[in-house]
């Protein structure tokens, strides 16, 4: 088996009495678009800085393609970084910025020029090579930062929230470009963001972090569809979290009891073992709920078994153009939010009506 691009083994990091990283162990594969996702202060940037070599670990080891790099200073690691603030050298032109790493590596002038030209073309900055960073727009500066970090052909590229300073439209465009660039170059990308949409759209795998700990590691689909815990379910997208008790277990399928006595089919994460009677919560995505024929609540439908229907009272609707959000009251203390595409098939509902909702997918989260 080839070595992982980056292997994090029992890494801890404290700043004085503040624990930035409690303990982390996971591997980032070669040629992967890997994202560290989490709210600010979760330790994701600290981990990035540990990999880059700007900070040293309190405990644990970091391996780069099988080689321990803890003792190496940043300039001895074949890793480059795209900084959040870009950190373009203001006194150098675009070309000089991009060529800086190559110059420090001792390349000769001709090779530097060729490589710089190639990078400038890759990031579409041909007319700007003699400008200073201050004369460029935010998007162009971002491209220079990218070209500068990629010019020395690092084995791993670290990106610290590189898109956060751009406006929405440019950000969306850059996402696609970054993804394409990663595929094209085959460089392992480690991307740090707090923006879940960014993480979901670009990443091969995502590590969700919170409070210095890994919450879940998986593909976008796994993280969204099968969140490992309440934090992940809440942090990624919108969800309904409802208290639940396990009624019966059948492998990864469980039946759980919801407030109001409803029974509901749900899945559990393969790493969680639960027994009958275990307390927890179910996470149900609003778009995985649908409102079925009104006032025929007791009719079985062709959905999965009997345990997928809930009765609730409509308390509010929010029209969003393509979709409508229905707010339902399940019991006194539990509300449900349902997101339905507008297609006129549903007919109008009045506030106070009792409706039947069908749950297409639910995930049980242990306490």
């Amino acid at each position, binding site marked *: 088996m080839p070595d992982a691009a980056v292997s994090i083994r029992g890494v801890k990091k404290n700043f004085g009495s503040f624990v930035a990283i409690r303990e982390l162990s996971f591997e980032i594969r070669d040629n992967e678009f890997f994202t560290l996702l989490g709210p600010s202060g979760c330790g994701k940037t600290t981990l990035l800085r540990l990999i*880059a*070599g700007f900070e040293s670990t309190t405990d644990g080891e970091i391996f780069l393609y099988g080689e321990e790099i803890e003792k190496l200073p*940043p*300039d001895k690691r074949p890793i480059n970084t795209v*900084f959040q603030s870009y950190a373009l*050298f*203001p006194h150098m032109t675009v070309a000089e910025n991009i060529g800086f790493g190559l110059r*420090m590596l001792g390349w000769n002038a001709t090779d530097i020029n060729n490589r710089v030209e190639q990078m400038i073309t890759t990031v579409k900055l041909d007319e700007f090579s003699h400008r200073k960073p201050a004369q460029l727009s935010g998007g162009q500066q971002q491209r220079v930062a990218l070209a500068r970090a990629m010019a*020395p052909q690092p084995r791993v590229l670290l990106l610290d929230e590189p898109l956060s300073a751009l406006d929405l439209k440019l950000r969306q465009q850059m996402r696609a470009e970054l993804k394409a660039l990663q595929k094209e170059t085959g460089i392992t990308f480690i991307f740090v963001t707090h923006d879940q949409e960014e993480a979901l759209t670009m990443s091969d795998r995502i590590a969700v972090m919170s409070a210095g700990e890994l919450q879940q590691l998986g593909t976008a689909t796994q993280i969204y569809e099968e969140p490992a815990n309440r934090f992940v379910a809440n942090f990624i997208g919108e969800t309904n979290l409802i208290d639940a008790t396990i009624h019966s277990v059948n492998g990864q399928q469980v039946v759980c009891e919801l407030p109001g006595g409803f029974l509901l089919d749900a899945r559990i994460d393969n790493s969680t073992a639960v027994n009958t009677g275990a307390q927890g919560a179910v996470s149900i995505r609003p778009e995985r709920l649908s409102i079925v024929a009104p006032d025929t609540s007791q009719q079985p439908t062709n959905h999965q078994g009997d345990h997928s229907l809930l009765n609730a009272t409509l308390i509010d609707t929010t029209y969003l153009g393509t979709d409508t959000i229905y707010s339902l009251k399940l019991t006194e203390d539990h509300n449900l939010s349902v997101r339905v595409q507008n297609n006129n098939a549903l007919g109008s509902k009045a506030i106070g009506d009792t409706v039947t909702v069908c749950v297409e997918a639910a995930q049980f989260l242990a306490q």
Partner: protein
Amino acid sequence: MGQKHRFNVRHYTGFSFMTIVCLLILYLPLLVVLVYSFNDSLSITRWGGFSLRWYTELFTGVESAKFKQAAFNSLTIALSAGVVATLFATAAAIGMVRGGHFRGKTLSFGLISIPIMVPEIVTAVATLIFFTSIGIKLGYASILLAHIVFCIPFAYLPIAARLQGIESSFEEAAQDLYASRWQAFRYVLMPMMAPGILSGFLLAFIISLDDFIITNFIKGAGVETLPTAIFGAVKQGIKPNIMALSTLMLLFSIVIVTLSYLIGRSDSSKATH
């Protein structure tokens, strides 16, 4: 239109009057010196027509050799003290601003900046006692040494201010791109700090050039700088050639200070990103 409602200091009663009074107090004496340096009369109070005779006398008259030697001392001391103080100040600024938290950091900052606030006469007496007690011979070298020391805090301020405005991510970026610590300093930090370093140097230079009190205490016999030479000459009565010399020094100072200001301002906007 909206101008009326905004805060404007001009609307205070007596603003113009106070402004004029302040400007007069500050600049009238200088103006008098400037004007009378071109006076074609031996009197320093009566106007006897325009002339450059005092400038000519300054460079060719009986006292010219003394003034030339003093000017040479002043300029070489200011230049050397400025350069050396700037080197120390740059190192101090990097240590203080980039050194993270270390024991005695606040104390160090105090020690660097206190000399600016200590009455100069105290520094002068202390320096004299110190030099004589350790047996340093008073003369050119003792002046230079003292100037280097008291110029450091002045050079430090603009350099540290500039460095504070430079995010550490620039050096990190340089190191990330395979620059050693030295290369990161040489190719990234130093060029970015250059305006601060230059304005620190110019400030140190002008402070040294201008110093009288400390110099007068420790210069020893026979060695003069321009300020002490002027003081010596004035003791025997103010001659118009002193006015010519003062005017030249004034113009020189204005040029240096303006230069320092322009450099400090020129690209402070580029320092952040």
